[in-house]
């Protein structure tokens, strides 16, 4: 709580460390804890341990956690947050809380009602395929697209195999689900993208970072574009809410940045996080971290996002 010295902006903390027993149930429990003590319009920051196990590679589901959280507490519809990681290889994640190292934990920082939160979501992916229908999916594992083995369909769009012999992606690809009107012209902002984290050549399936796609969904293969990522950072961050705008006093900017956007992963020549820091409109304290999944409101409801940067601005009203 180093960053929050004044009581009128200090968040209250609620924590559960039951993610290993089920992300959905942990979300429900966290929602109940928050509901009992906080108003439904309070700004909330949700942080959780991303990694369930490294080998085999299993991740906690932000989708299920958020679903449980939102089911119990209406304020969670505007949640912002992210999944915590120790490194780019997704080997581990933990939370240091009250002098203890907690694993498989999720915590909600709930701000007083005098605090508002605004989000700017920065994207980086554009579609590179026509629409494909998800015809068989179990959890996060897509078995068929348009009635054919999903891995075969995806690799038809690539010049090289999607994964190496250890089933790790040889390149970073995402599947995008367009929100809103399907047949209208879309922008990158209209998509929820899911990173392909692994594939099974025998079963012909691809596994996504989150299990929130469904049978019948129309998806497109998306490719990360470093130039677009940097342009969007330059153009949008400058529009972040400024001091005294609308009677609000920003006291913290928090940048929740997908680890895949780091230059080592994205292939960009400059660090996108540096670009964000450079174009911030004022000297409001700025903090950031690389995340596994980002959580931010989209179309009136918070979603887990992949491959995005979420710039949250916390302001005190009055």
């Amino acid at each position, binding site marked *: 709580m180093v960053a929050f010295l004044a009581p009128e902006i200090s968040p209250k903390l609620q924590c559960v460390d039951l993610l290993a027993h089920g992300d959905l149930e942990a979300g429900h429990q966290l929602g109940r804890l928050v509901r009992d003590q906080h108003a439904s319009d309070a700004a909330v920051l949700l942080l959780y341990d991303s990694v369930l196990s490294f*080998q085999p590679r299993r991740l906690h589901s932000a989708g299920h956690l958020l679903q449980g959280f939102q089911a119990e507490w209406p304020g969670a519809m505007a949640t912002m947050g992210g999944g915590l990681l120790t*490194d*780019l*290889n*997704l080997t581990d994640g933990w939370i240091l809380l009250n002098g203890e190292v907690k694993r498989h934990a999720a915590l909600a920082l709930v701000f007083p009602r005098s605090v508002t939160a605004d989000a700017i979501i920065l994207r980086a992916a554009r579609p590179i395929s*026509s629409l494909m229908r998800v015809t068989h999916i179990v959890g996060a594992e897509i078995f068929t697209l348009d009635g054919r083995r999903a891995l075969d369909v995806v690799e038809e*769009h690539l010049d090289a195999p999607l994964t190496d012999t*250890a089933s790790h992606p040889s390149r970073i690809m995402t599947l995008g689900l367009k929100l809103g009107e399907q047949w209208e012209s879309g922008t990158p902002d209209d998509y929820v993208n899911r990173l392909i984290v692994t594939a099974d050549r025998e079963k012909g399936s691809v596994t996504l970072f989150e299990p929130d796609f469904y049978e019948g969904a129309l998806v497109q293969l998306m*490719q990360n574009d470093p130039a677009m990522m940097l342009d969007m950072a330059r153009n949008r961050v400058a529009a972040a809410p400024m001091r005294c705008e609308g009677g609000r006093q920003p006291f913290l900017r928090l940048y929740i940045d997908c680890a895949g956007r780091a230059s080592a992963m994205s*292939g960009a020549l400059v660090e996108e996080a540096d670009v964000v820091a450079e174009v911030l409109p004022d000297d409001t304290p700025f903090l950031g971290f690389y995340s596994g999944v980002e959580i931010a409101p989209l179309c009136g409801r918070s979603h887990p996002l992949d491959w995005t940067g979420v710039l949250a601005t916390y302001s005190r009203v009055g």
Partner: protein
Amino acid sequence: MNTPVRAAAEKELIYYRRMCNELGKDLQRVQEENERLVREVRRYQSQSRLDRELSHVTGTAADMASMATLVLDAVIEHSLCARAMILHERADHAGCFNILAAAGCRDILVKPSATLDAAPAFGHSFEGEHFPAGVAAFFKAVGKLIGSTHLIWNYDDDSGFAILMAGALGPGDVMFRQQGDDLSYTALARLVDGYWRLQARQPANEIPEISEPPPCIEASPAPSQDTIPRLDRARPTIREYEIASSIAKGGAIEQVAVLMRDDGEYELFVRPSWSTGFRQMLTFRGHAEKVYKDVNRLLGYVRTACRHDGSIVFYAGGSKQFEALKPAAPTSLPDDRTREASAYDATGATDVPSIPFKRSGGTDENRS
């Protein structure tokens, strides 16, 4: 919709779907080419950053243990590897390597030494595929040592130093594979340079107390842009160990001059109190003149290693002063290493002791 119209609409749909997919492939190809170029640039940037960082580490570390630890920190940061070790082959037991330092190994038991027979100068192993192919037993041994089958090995046969790096399963492994070989080579080269630098300083450390100062020659006037500097023709070059040991005995570097070459690099000349004129700095091993690309590094060297706090005169390429000092270069005096060493011996200074390790010859020490 009647059948012919529906059929035409479906054909059109298929046409546009195909075109969309083809455009997507084109976009990917363009982007892949762009990424390939960016990767190349990043590779050079990473190598350059690592080289600069290690140059600083190996130029300032007080002993091999601290140097090895700092080198590993830099290697892990720049190559995105999960684990790394620095090993040193025992002089009395070929194939037996002491592990000088290890990083990222908190979850495995690090042995103090290991026997690694038929160690190649360079090798890597990924997913069961080895290079070179004929030393499977070696890769099995190093894999067991570092607890991974994704590894890169680099070994300097002359000095006996080796660096072993292991990648991590996951997205970061791609970077490790792309850059690990270059970065491990850079790290090993710098480590060996640092080792020789420490060895070169040993005579100064072995002097128990300051004995008589070396004979001081009458000081010449401080150099300026106009005066023609005088070269010590009898001993035109100097190495760091001579400076260190002579300073320990009470000598001093009285004047410093720098030649600015046309290629943007700088050569360093010092006038010690025990010499009759300027002498050109050579690298640790004396194979070539010490050359700097970065004036700040040159300045740091003059202030710390030479303990000279006075002014430094820079002479432009082609100037009379430049020409007066230029004949000191080893290229113009091909055998001056021997001459310089024998002249130094004649002063009675302590020579470099016999070094218990093998001699190095394969690394570039002249990149300051």
